[in-house]
């Protein structure tokens, strides 16, 4: 099972590295047009080929990784930043009106798939990377709220929490000092999974034109460009497609691996 963690970690690191390097260096300027060399399949000078404007696909993938990672990371941050406190609060007041309101609110947000939220936001504010972040982020809130509440509820029954209460700590302090550290592992694993879902969602939104707008490069939009040319230049679709698949696969494997690694009980159960 450690293999998953290593393979996933390597794949994820590869794309994070590509994104970081792209700030300092890319093989070509990702916006530079080179019409004579358009639609070239991969060869020595352009390792991943060129698109219909002769732009270097490797450079575009590297810069596009920035967009994907940034959107997904901030979206997960929004989901965690709002969802975890809500979940802790609901668990601390379990069974009360606050708990009920938070959980029903969660159900309601779940009824709006992120794409539907994105459509609503786009209808009002127009398309853009920031709106994609908000749409994916809102959808992440109930995910983290629910998982935090579930884990926190069982922790509240434990003796060490009772001890903390006897020591005179209030619910808020117990939540932060004792509950939160004990759900961190769970949140890391879920965060990895939501991160990969965020990358898929960003690609989908950009593909239909609701996400990052030109000139911001994005894997989803590269695929939208490739669509009409797929019969004459399949590599234009294959390159960003594989970038998405490998990143998501890497993050998912890493999530699975982390779950097994951080929870020793599973190591026995899974064999």
């Amino acid at each position, binding site marked *: 099972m450690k293999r998953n963690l290593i393979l996933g970690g390597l794949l994820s690191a590869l794309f994070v590295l590509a994104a970081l390097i792209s700030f300092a260096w890319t093989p070509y300027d990702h916006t530079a047009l080179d019409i004579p060399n358009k639609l070239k399949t991969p060869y020595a000078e352009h390792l991943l080929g060129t698109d219909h404007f002769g732009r270097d696909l490797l450079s575009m993938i590297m810069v596009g990784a920035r967009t994907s990672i940034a959107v997904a990371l901030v979206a997960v941050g929004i989901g965690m930043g709002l969802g975890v406190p809500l979940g802790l609060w609901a668990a601390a007041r379990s069974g009360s009106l606050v708990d009920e309101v938070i959980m029903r609110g969660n*159900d309601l947000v779940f009824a709006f798939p992120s794409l539907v939220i994105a459509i*609503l936001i786009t209808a009002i504010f127009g398309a853009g990377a920031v709106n994609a972040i908000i749409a994916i982020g809102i959808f992440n809130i109930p995910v983290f709220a629910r998982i935090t509440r579930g884990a926190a509820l069982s922790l509240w029954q434990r003796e060490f929490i009772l001890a903390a209460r006897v020591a005179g700590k209030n619910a808020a302090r117990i939540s932060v000092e004792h509950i939160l550290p004990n759900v961190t592992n769970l949140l890391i694993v879920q965060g990895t999974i939501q991160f990969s879902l965020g990358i898929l969602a960003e690609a989908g939104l950009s593909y*239909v034109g609701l996400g990052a707008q030109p000139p911001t490069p994005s894997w989803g939009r590269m*695929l939208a460009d490739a*669509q009409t040319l797929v019969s004459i230049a399949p590599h234009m*679709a294959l390159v960003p497609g594989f970038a998405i*698949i490998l990143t998501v696969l890497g993050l998912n494997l890493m999530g699975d691996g982390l779950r097994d690694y951080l929870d020793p009980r599973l190591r026995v159960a899974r064999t």
Partner: protein
Amino acid sequence: MLRYTLKRLFSLILSLAVASVAIFAVIEIAPGDPASFMLGMNAQPETLAALRSELGLDVSKVERYFAWTSGMLTGDFGTSYTYRTPVIDMIRDRLWVSLPLALYALVLSTLVAFPAGIYAASRRGQAGDIGIMGATQLGVAVPNFWFAMMLVLIFAINLRWFAAGGFIGWDAGFWKGLHALTLPAIALALPQAAILARVMRSSLLDVLGEDFMRTARAKGLSSRQALWRHGLRNALIPVLTIIGLQFSFLLAGSIIIEQVFYLPGLGRLVFQSISARDLIVVESVVMLLVFSVILVNFLVDLAYAAVDPRLRSRT
């Protein structure tokens, strides 16, 4: 059971009410007045006022909200700003594409996921299991619209088995219509099948460890008989929940897949309406999507409670 049903029904109505207020409020924030958008920059104030009253924009927001919701309850979704046709007619036409597509995908994903999940569970840890689990990891990671493009490339452009896009319509015959929706349905079904197969496998593995399975073996059933007669039925409960949840992903996913195949479904309607600032259509389609998700989850909850009486007492 009656008390539970009423309780769930109340929560269903409450959810719908809150959702409709949220959607209405969000659309209301949208800048720009549809009437002035339709008439352009040089519109006369009188014409503008006339159009505003024709579209029902001249009354207060609260009145408009109640007009919109009470209209929807009676099947009147209002009139499209751009096409001047009843929104319900536009939606009905598109629904005949989107709904069959989502159902088709649901059937496909179930047909693939059940055998795959059962096979993997029965060969736990062996090559077949590892192979199927690897395939599902891949299936979850592949963006379905990219997969759709690959399907078009292989089966429409190279092999010419299917059309690359468009929808022939059900008037051409059921099988022709189904044929046209096959590639989109496969693309839509892929990630869902992968998720479902994983759920099926783990749910079955949980059940296989139960005491009643040992009892079934002890009374002389072969492992295969025990699996089919006792294991599968008990493993199905969590699987059904996931199928219910997937419905919402399929409906939302079809919005993107329709773009790949140029299908005249709800998704295209929404995008056209957004660019034409035909917000009443956007509002109604989004409400319809949310309504169907809430309704399906309500039905799953009820089915769940009918199967498992223990759940009725909870919440």
